[in-house]
């Protein structure tokens, strides 16, 4: 019966009367998120970048592979908005195309990795025993296994639609830490009374996982997926930078940065547009993730740390 201030703020929740209907959870989350100004700004930036990535290619008459022999290494102008590179390709067209590829890969990896982590973590945590041991061992193994090695060996050998396989490989090496967290959450959920209640009522284990465990870690998963998108973009660009990721003629922010690095001091437009967009995108995604964390998880709020320690 902690008469902690938060109990008071939360209104009378230990009574036997009807309390006024509080706003729904989604509404509360939305309101709190909107109150988070940096997060809202992040969201807007992410949206704008998506617009840029998908509308951008239609705005310019240059395609990312067109070569303008009359303009090599030309500075930004009305003809080439963001200038051209050393072989005369339009930097704007290239950058928006690269951005598009990086965003698609990031999204794909974020969603796939988080989904995989949810399944593995929830099963390991809920079933325990040998299932748990096996899955945990696999998780640990993949954690120490140099993912860099696999990706860099495999992906340069892929041609054409190789970026898809590359993205799946990235996802394959990106789920482990999340899975561990989900596992420990599932372990504590397994002992929670509502899960026990379901078990004693004869609800089957898979149904319990789908209906009770996963929805209850969903808020964590949403946050994590957001952040995973950001880190996936970082991994993608890093590998592409070294030629182990997206292969030419395809471009991504990573390959563009790699091409521009040498000229960064002398012809900054070849480098800074791609680099800037990369940082801005990841930053915006991280801010959104942080805002979501605050909005979804009431315990992450200052001054609302401890829940009600009701008479236990």
């Amino acid at each position, binding site marked *: *019966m*902690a*008469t*902690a*201030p938060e*109990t*008071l*703020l939360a*209104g*009378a*929740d*230990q*009574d*036997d*009367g*009807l*309390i*006024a*209907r*509080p706003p*729904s*959870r989604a509404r509360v989350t939305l309101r709190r998120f909107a109150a988070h100004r940096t997060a809202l700004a992040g969201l807007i930036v992410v949206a704008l970048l998506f617009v840029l990535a998908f509308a951008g290619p239609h705005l310019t008459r240059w395609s990312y592979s067109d070569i303008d022999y009359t303009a090599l290494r030309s500075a930004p102008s009305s003809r080439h908005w963001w200038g051209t590179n050393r072989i005369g390709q339009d930097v704007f067209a290239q950058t928006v195309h690269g951005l598009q590829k990086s965003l698609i890969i990031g999204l794909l990896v974020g969603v796939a990795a988080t989904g995989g982590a949810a399944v593995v973590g929830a099963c390991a945590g809920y079933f325990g025993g040998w299932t748990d041991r096996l899955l945990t061992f696999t998780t640990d193994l993949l954690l120490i296994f140099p993912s860099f090695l696999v990706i860099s060996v495999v992906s340069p050998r892929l041609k054409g639609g190789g970026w898809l396989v590359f993205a799946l490989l990235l996802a394959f090496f990106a789920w482990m830490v999340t899975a561990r967290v989900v596992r420990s959450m599932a372990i504590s959920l397994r002992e*929670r*009374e*509502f899960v*026990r*209640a*379901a078990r*004693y*009522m*004869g*609800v089957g284990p898979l149904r319990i996982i789908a*209906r*009770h465990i996963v*929805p*209850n870690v*969903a808020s964590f998963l949403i946050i994590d997926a957001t952040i995973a998108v950001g880190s996936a973009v970082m991994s993608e660009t890093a590998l592409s930078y070294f030629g182990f990721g997206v292969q030419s003629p395809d471009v991504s922010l990573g390959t563009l940065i790699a091409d521009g690095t040498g000229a960064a001091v002398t012809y900054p437009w070849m480098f800074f547009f791609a680099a800037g967009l990369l940082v801005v995108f990841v930053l915006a995604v991280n801010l959104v993730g942080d805002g979501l964390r605050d909005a979804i998880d009431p315990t992450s709020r200052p*001054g609302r740390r401890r829940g*009600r*320690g*009701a*008479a*236990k």
Partner: protein
Amino acid sequence: MNATTAGAVLDIRGLHVDFAGVPAVRGVDLALRRGEVLGLVGESGSGKSVTALAAMGLLPSGADVRGSVTLDGTELMGAGDTALSAVRGNRIAMVFQDPLSAFTPVYRIGDQIVEALRTHQDISRERAAERAVELLDLVGIPEPRIRAAAFPHEFSGGMRQRAMIAMAVANDPDVILADEPTTALDVTVQAQVLDVLRTAQRETGAALLLVSHDLGVIAGTADRVAVMYAGRIVETAPVDELFARPRMPYTLGLIGAVPRLDADAKGRPEPLVPIPGAPPAPAALPPGCAFAPRCPLAEDRCRVAQPELVEVALPEPAVAVRPEPAVAADEPHLAACLRAGEVAGLRPLDVFPVPGADVAAERAADGRPEGTSVLRVSGLAKTFPLLKGAVFRRRVGSVHAVDGVDLDIRAGEVLGLVGESGSGKSTTLFEILELRRPERGSVEVLGRGTDTLTRREAHALRAQVQIVFQDPMASLDPRLPVGDIIAEPLRAQRAERDRIARRVPELLRQVGLDPAHADRFPHEFSGGQRQRIGIARALAVDPRLLVLDEPVSALDVSVQAGILNLLLRLRAELGLSYLFVSHDLSVVRHIADRVSVMYLGRTVETGAVGEVFTRPLHPYTQALLSAVPLPDPVRERARARILLPGDPPSPTRRLRGCPFRSRCQVFAALPGPQRERCTDQAPPLAEQGGDHVAACHFPAARPVL
């Protein structure tokens, strides 16, 4: 008013606390005199802990605090951190509710006490360490020298709370503020801790502010009581006066809602009075008396202005009938109620209507029903491996969580299962509910032994046995609407869609909820309502037996009463049987027909409630009963308490002989040769007349109430 303030060590005047503009405390005046114990009672959310924290200046920075707090005439309000730090722990000390989280986990207990000493006294580390050991000894911690080097997690809850008290009295404070110091503890440990607290208070001569929601604890400890409701003090009086003649309907309701152990021995206890409604949300207080929406005596004028806390002029006849005892002039009886004069002398039942009170009363007084057996458990045992290591776990021993439990419930019967935490109550429940062959012993549900059940049969049997959990928030999936939650057992039993659609509103109505609320989520309901939802879910598949695991212990008393009455009504209407697990003997006394007492995984005494509670035979049952505080100061003070020493031994070792002997007061008094029986032979459950059984070599009735 000034009269009370004279001679006060700690004087709180006009205290207001707001959190983000929402009032939590609204004008509290409290004066604490040297050597006095002032009890501060109220339901959760009434502002009592906030008041105590405000006096210490320890509220989070978001709190807006106004008013005055003076210590021996020195104003503390608005003082700087350095100035307040010099007072905290030195002149005002605090004992917190949850002793596990209240100690820093990474430092040794002794060192934390040393720190408290050296912060205020200029003494050497060695001297302080010596003193810390003395303090631990004072609060009754065995082997204090060794224990001082232990970390908080190595202490049991009771020991931690004692260490907390030792730390609080380290610097001979003038004032001790104890915030729900026994709430998380077992009754036997609660009795020990209250005893230590009283001793500490006597030794230091400090004034003690005891904050509690438990009227029983207050009755036995406090000299004066203040009752808080919605951030204000609504009644204050000397303890005897308050319990004998409460003048505020709310206090009356609180007293009437407490289940009592000492209900008259022959018949059933009086029905409990639930206080209807809920405390107002702090953000939306009604204009007049804050209690008006729940008060059966409310009149129009109550809703106009907030009643002042004033001395009550009693109408003449009342005084004539019940002459006032000699009350010192400086201890007035104040109440914030316009009709206080009329309330004095009324009984809770006179004011608060109890729906279905008659149901509760009309139960078979004696003899067991001739019904069929619903549950029969004999010799049940369950051991858990004691594991070590994080990855390659290896077994280093066994925890004998349940080690010989016998239960027997007939149709329509309520069996109360009591014991301290760690006695194996919950494990027993879960073993029964697993519906599989137990490790040892046998479980029969509705005449079917669980060892021979096929999967399909077990699934069908699950519909007959349903469970209600302790924490109504934890047992309802926060992500599902209430309708789905209630439908879950029906779906698990593959009921048709339209049957489910019909059943859900019916169930909601049955437990006193509005069927229109089926699409709401659990967090939109209050604690008591959530527990009603839990009960509705359990009833969904028409079970024969409900297993209730501490169903009311997470609820406030006023709410608890409503749930208990509901359970009694349902049982009468539906002919249910209950296995009611509780650590609270007074609740069991109120609801159960028969009671079974567990200690260290074994059944030590079983019998009809009336019989066991009036004529307990096992020394453990006697100690348990004796530890339960009575919400009646006069009787409470007159009682001789059996204080059990220490904590139950660890269930990792199976002792030869009687497992209770390390704490048994009878054993301690036995002459040598007779002791051998206790040390050598485990006492079997033996009949002691009728169906009253007890597992003790020397059973004898001893008065405990």
